[in-house]
């Protein structure tokens, strides 16, 4: 649905996106992750033509965005809704009027607008607030209005630019719930830009990680977080302290066997003792994944590795 190939973008002389390639399929919830200044918002804005790009291709519905003419681009944008960090609602219009605005600009029939706005108010759970002004709403409610507005023209893609970054954790969770619902119920492909790892883990299926305009990791969320490579670890800011004596073995628990009691089973089977020196469990979407570092004596190494291979565990020396 969205295909990016070898895309470069400059701001003046500074290269902000370097050789970006990615593919987003219909129905995905795809995350562009990075620290501030990594270029993720810029990349997102290229998708609906709010930013242009120099070299490379970016195709949405098989259309090259940079080749669209002004009116074609406007027409195209009907298919791509967008929500923002600071909601970007009109202060002088009511909730109802804000949501109705895109349809009014596209000259929809009044009855049709009314029906659609009511429907969307219902969807985002703000039917009782339709005559309120944005200044009377909480942050979460404002974002719900913005989401409703982004959906009025029946887009196939929803772009979310740090939509939860200005919200508290509980509100963030409820907005993410709503986005998930929209993804499942309406089948809308969602591309989110965020610097919050918790957001990525709880909602996205796939992600790319951006740093200084480069992709430093991409793939399914489980894989990215389960077996992070050096770059990824640095990116996540994780650091583990493990003993210097003996042998440290890191075990990865992918979703299928996260709940298995493999560690205690190994201790009993091999009749050895070892220390658990580091560990972490994380909830990603609905799965639990985790990793654990155990410290064993050198003489046990062979037995342990043999056992782990036999059980098809994913492991490495730490």
């Amino acid at each position, binding site marked *: 649905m969205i295909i990016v190939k070898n895309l470069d973008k400059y701001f003046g002389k500074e290269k902000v996106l370097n050789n970006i390639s990615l593919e987003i399929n219909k129905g995905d919830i795809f995350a562009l992750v990075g620290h501030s200044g990594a270029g993720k918002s810029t990349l997102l804005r290229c998708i609906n033509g*709010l930013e242009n790009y120099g070299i490379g291709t970016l195709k949405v519905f098989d259309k090259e965005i940079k080749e669209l003419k002004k009116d074609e681009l406007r027409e195209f944008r009907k298919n791509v809704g967008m929500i923002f960090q600071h*909601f970007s609602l009109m202060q002088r219009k009511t909730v109802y009027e804000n949501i109705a605005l895109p349809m009014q600009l596209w000259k929809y029939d009044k009855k049709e607008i009314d029906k659609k706005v009511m429907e969307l108010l219902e969807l985002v759970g703000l039917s009782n607030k339709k005559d309120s002004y944005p200044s009377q709403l909480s942050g979460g409610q404002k974002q719900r209005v913005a989401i409703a507005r982004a959906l009025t023209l029946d887009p196939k893609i929803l772009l979310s630019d740090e939509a939860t970054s200005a919200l508290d954790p509980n509100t963030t969770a409820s907005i993410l719930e709503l986005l998930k619902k929209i993804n499942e119920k309406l089948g809308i492909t969602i591309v989110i830009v965020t610097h919050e790892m918790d957001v990525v883990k709880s909602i996205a299926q796939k992600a790319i990680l951006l740093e200084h305009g480069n992709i430093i990791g991409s793939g399914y969320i489980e894989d990215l977080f389960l077996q992070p490579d050096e770059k990824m670890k640095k990116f996540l800011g994780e650091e583990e302290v493990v003993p210097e004596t003996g042998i440290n073995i890191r075990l990865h628990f992918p979703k299928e066997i996260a709940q298995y009691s493999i560690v205690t089973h190994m201790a009993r089977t091999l009749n050895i003792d070892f220390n658990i020196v580091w560990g972490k469990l994380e909830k990603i979407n609905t799965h639990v994944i985790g990793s654990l570092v155990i410290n064993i004596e050198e003489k046990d190494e062979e037995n342990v590795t043999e056992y782990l291979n036999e059980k098809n565990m994913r492991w490495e020396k730490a």
Partner: protein
Amino acid sequence: MFEKILLPAIGETLYMSLTATFLAVLLGFIPAIMLILSDEDGLKPNAKLYRSLDVVINTLRSFPFIILMIILFPVTKMIIGKSIGTTAAIVPLTIGAAPFIARLIESALKEVDKGVVEAAKSFGASNFQIIFKVMIVEALPGIISTITLTLITVVGFSAMAGAVGGGGLGDVAIKYGYYRFQTDVMIYTVMALIVLVQFFQSLGDYIYKITKK
């Protein structure tokens, strides 16, 4: 004295300042929108257009009003048919106030949240729609303040219209109060001006409050 001098003068002041402000708003809106469009981060950046408008506006604004009035004599004559009188005074008042209003409307439009403009783009609004259906709507309270401010400034400027036979309260204050040492007339005209300015400001504030949500 009240009916013969003060009342007609109030009428002239109202006529000059209201008409001139109204025309200045119409005249000032166009360059204001062109400034907003052509600004560096505007909808259609155009450095040349922006710079030239900028220079023209600054030049017009640097003229002392009384000088501007004299320079504009030929223009006034062309438009009104004569260069003195109350109606004639409206021409320089308008041209003096228009660049002022253009600047103020520009800054009111600049205050509009960039995010709202971006959101409008994201659902396919045209530049025309962004200006008229989004930016001006959002900036309306600011524009109201601008008009109030201009109206009061024009009331002040209109005092100088006496120099071209424009009449008005300022003219009365100078003619009777200053040249003829009629202190009572001076006090009455000043009081009338105070009431007028108060009234315009309160009205402006009231409309601002209604439009501000």
